[in-house]
C-alpha cells in the first residue's frame, strides 16, 4: 500500500485518507500501527497546569503510548545549595512545591536543626504544625478545585480559591509574604503569632467548613463528576509502591503511609487524627482522599490552637537564630552574632542527615551531607512529584485524552517541585 507508506513517513494523516483507512482497518487489524497520530501535549498548555510536555501516540482518541519530557523550569537548586549558607537555602525550598511553601520551609529548618541538635520549644512546634496544616489545606484546595475545572465545573474552583486567598492572608500576617513564604527560621519562628493572625485564623476556622461542605455537595455524589473520574487513571497499591508513590496518591491506592504518623516530627504525636485511604487508586479516590485530609488537617489545627502552649517561639541558639533587631543596635554580642549569621560565617558540624516531612504531595525528604563548612557539601531533595510523575504514561495508556488530562490534575504534579 503506497499511500500507507507515505502516511507513515510524515507521521501525519490526511483527514480523508484516514477516513478511508479506518474503513480498511476494521477488517485488517495488522495495519493498526499506520493509523497513529502524534499529539504534542504541552509544554505550555492550559490543561497541564505547569510546563511539561507529553508526546502522545494516539489511535483516534485512545492513547497508545506517552513520553514525558521534563526539566523546562529546572533551576539547579541542588547545585545552588552547595554555595549557600543554610538559612539562604530556605527561599529555594519555597520554589519547589509553591502551593505549600511553608511545609518545604519547615522541613528544611527541621533538617538543619537535626544536624545542629537544636531543640525547638513546644510553642514553636505547634505554630509550625498550624502553618503546615494550613499549607496542606491550600495545596489540596488547589488540586481539587482544578480537578473540577478540568472536568468542566468552574464554580467549585472559585469557591475554594476564595478560601485559599484567606489562608494566604493568614500567611501574610505570620511571615509577611503569601506565595513564596520563607517562613520561620532555623530554631523556630521569626515572630510569635500576632493577635491579628490569631483572629484571622479563628475567623477562617469558623467560616471554612461551610464552604468545604458546599464544595463537597457539588462534587462528591455528582453523577457527571463520578462518571468522569471513577476508574480513570487507576494504579494498584503494588505498582504505586514500586513507583515510589507517597502522600495522597499512595493513600488513594490503599496504603496508609503517612510520615506524620510513622516518623512524627514537630509534635505530630500530640494530635489525634486519622489517615484516610482509598481502594482503587483512581482519580475519584485521589479526590476523596484529599478532601478527607482537609478535614483531618482542620482537626489538627483546632487541637493545636486549643492547646497552644505558652513560652518562647524560638530556640535559644544564638549561633544560628538571629538576635532581635533592637538588640543588634544596642548590644555588642547581638551585633556580632547578627553579623556572623548574615555573612554565613558559622560552620555546621560534619555529618549526614536525612529528614522527611509529609508534604502536600508526599514524603518530602532532605538528604544533607555537611563536611563541616558553612554550606552543605551535597544537598539532595527527595521530591515526591518527581518520583511519582514517571508513572504517568503507565496510568494513562489505554484511556482517552480527556481522561489523561484529569489524571494529570488529580496527581497534582507541581512543575516547580518536579524540576527543582
Amino acid at each position, binding site marked *: 500500500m503506497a499511500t500507507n507508506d507515505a502516511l507513515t513517513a510524515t507521521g501525519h494523516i490526511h483527514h480523508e485518507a484516514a477516513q478511508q483507512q479506518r474503513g480498511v482497518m476494521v477488517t485488517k487489524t495488522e495495519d493498526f500501527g499506520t493509523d497513529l497520530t502524534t499529539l504534542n501535549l504541552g509544554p505550555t498548555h492550559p490543561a497541564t497546569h505547569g510546563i511539561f510536555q507529553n508526546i502522545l501516540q494516539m489511535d483516534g482518541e485512545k492513547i497508545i503510548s506517552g513520553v514525558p519530557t*521534563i*526539566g523546562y523550569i*529546572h533551576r*539547579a537548586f*541542588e*547545585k*545552588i545549595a*552547595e*554555595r549557600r549558607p543554610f538559612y539562604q537555602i530556605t527561599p529555594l525550598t519555597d520554589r519547589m512545591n509553591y502551593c505549600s511553601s511553608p511545609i518545604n520551609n519547615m522541613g528544611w529548618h527541621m533538617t538543619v536543626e*537535626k*544536624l*545542629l*541538635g537544636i531543640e525547638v520549644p513546644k510553642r514553636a512546634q505547634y505554630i509550625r504544625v498550624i502553618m503546615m496544616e494550613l499549607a496542606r489545606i491550600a495545596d489540596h484546595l488547589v488540586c481539587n478545585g482544578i480537578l473540577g475545572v478540568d472536568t468542566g465545573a468552574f464554580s467549585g474552583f472559585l469557591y475554594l480559591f476564595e478560601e485559599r486567598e484567606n489562608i494566604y492572608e493568614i500567611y501574610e500576617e505570620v511571615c509577611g509574604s503569601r506565595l513564596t513564604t520563607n517562613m520561620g527560621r532555623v530554631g523556630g519562628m521569626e515572630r510569635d503569632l500576632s493577635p491579628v493572625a490569631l483572629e484571622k485564623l479563628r475567623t477562617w476556622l469558623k467560616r471554612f467548613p461551610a464552604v468545604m461542605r458546599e464544595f463537597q455537595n457539588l462534587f462528591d455524589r455528582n453523577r457527571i463528576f463520578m462518571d468522569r473520574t471513577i476508574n480513570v487513571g487507576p494504579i494498584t497499591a503494588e*505498582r504505586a*509502591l*514500586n*513507583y*515510589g508513590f507517597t502522600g495522597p496518591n499512595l493513600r488513594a491506592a490503599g*496504603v496508609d*503511609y503517612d510520615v506524620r504518623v*510513622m*516518623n512524627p516530627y514537630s509534635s505530630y504525636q500530640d494530635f489525634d487524627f486519622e489517615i484516610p485511604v482509598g481502594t482503587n487508586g483512581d482519580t475519584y479516590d485521589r479526590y476523596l482522599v484529599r478532601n478527607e485530609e482537609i478535614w483531618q488537617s482542620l482537626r489538627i489545627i483546632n487541637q493545636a490552637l486549643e492547646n497552644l502552649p505558652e513560652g518562647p517561639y524560638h530556640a535559644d*541558639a544564638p*549561633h544560628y537564630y538571629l538576635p532581635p533587631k533592637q538588640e543588634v543596635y544596642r548590644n555588642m554580642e547581638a551585633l556580632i552574632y547578627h553579623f556572623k549569621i548574615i*555573612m554565613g*560565617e558559622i*560552620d*555546621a*558540624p560534619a*555529618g*549526614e*542527615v*536525612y529528614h*522527611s516531612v509529609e508534604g502536600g504531595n508526599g*514524603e518530602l*525528604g532532605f*538528604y544533607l*551531607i555537611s563536611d*563541616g563548612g558553612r554550606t552543605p557539601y*551535597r544537598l*539532595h531533595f*527527595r521530591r515526591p512529584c*518527581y*518520583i511519582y510523575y*514517571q*508513572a504517568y504514561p503507565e496510568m494513562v495508556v489505554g484511556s482517552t485524552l480527556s481522561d489523561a488530562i484529569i489524571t494529570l490534575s488529580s496527581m497534582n504534579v507541581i512543575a516547580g517541585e518536579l*524540576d*527543582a
Partner: protein
Amino acid sequence: MSELNTSPAAQQKAADYVKAHAAIGNEQILARLQELFGADTFSDVEEQYGLLTATVSREKIHEIIDVLHGEEQLQLNFLTTMCGVHWPDNEGKELSVVYQLHSLVNNIRLRLKIFFPIQDPVVPTLTDVYATANWMEREAFDFYGIIFTGHPNLIRILNVEDMDYHPMRKEYPLEDGTREDKTDLFFGR
C-alpha cells in the same frame, strides 16, 4: 560554640529516638544483613543520626537490593531515594551513589553507598527491581555522568540534551571563577 559544632548529643538523641520507635533495632538489621550477604560485604558501618549506613561494592549492590526487595523479615521494599555524590579528593573512589531503602511495615530505614572511580562510572541499573529507579538513575546520569548498565532509556532528564558536561561535579563552580569584580578579600566568595 564547640559543644554545638561537635554535636554528639544530637547524634545520641536521634539514635535514641530511632531505637525507641523502630520495631527492629539497627543491630538486628545489621545482623540480618550480614547473615544474608556475609559479614565482609558491609564496610564503614555507621549510624548517622540514627540511620544505619553501610558501604558495599558496586558488584553486589544490585543483588543486595534485589534480595532485600523480596526479603520477608526486614521488608525493606521501598526505594525512598537515590542520588550521586562527587568526592574529587577521594582517589580511586571519586563518585558515589547513595541508595536509601525504607520498610513501610517495620518503619526501618537503611542507607547503602557505593564508591567507584570517575574514569569507570559504571553501575548496574535497578530499574528491573524498582520502576522508580528509572528517573532517579537518569538524574544521576544527568548530574554526574554515572552510567547505569541495563537502563532502558539513559538520557538526560533535567538539563538540555546537547549539554556536554555533567554539571553537579565539583570541578564546575557555580559562579564564573574568573570574575574579579565580586571577589571579597575578607569573606571569600
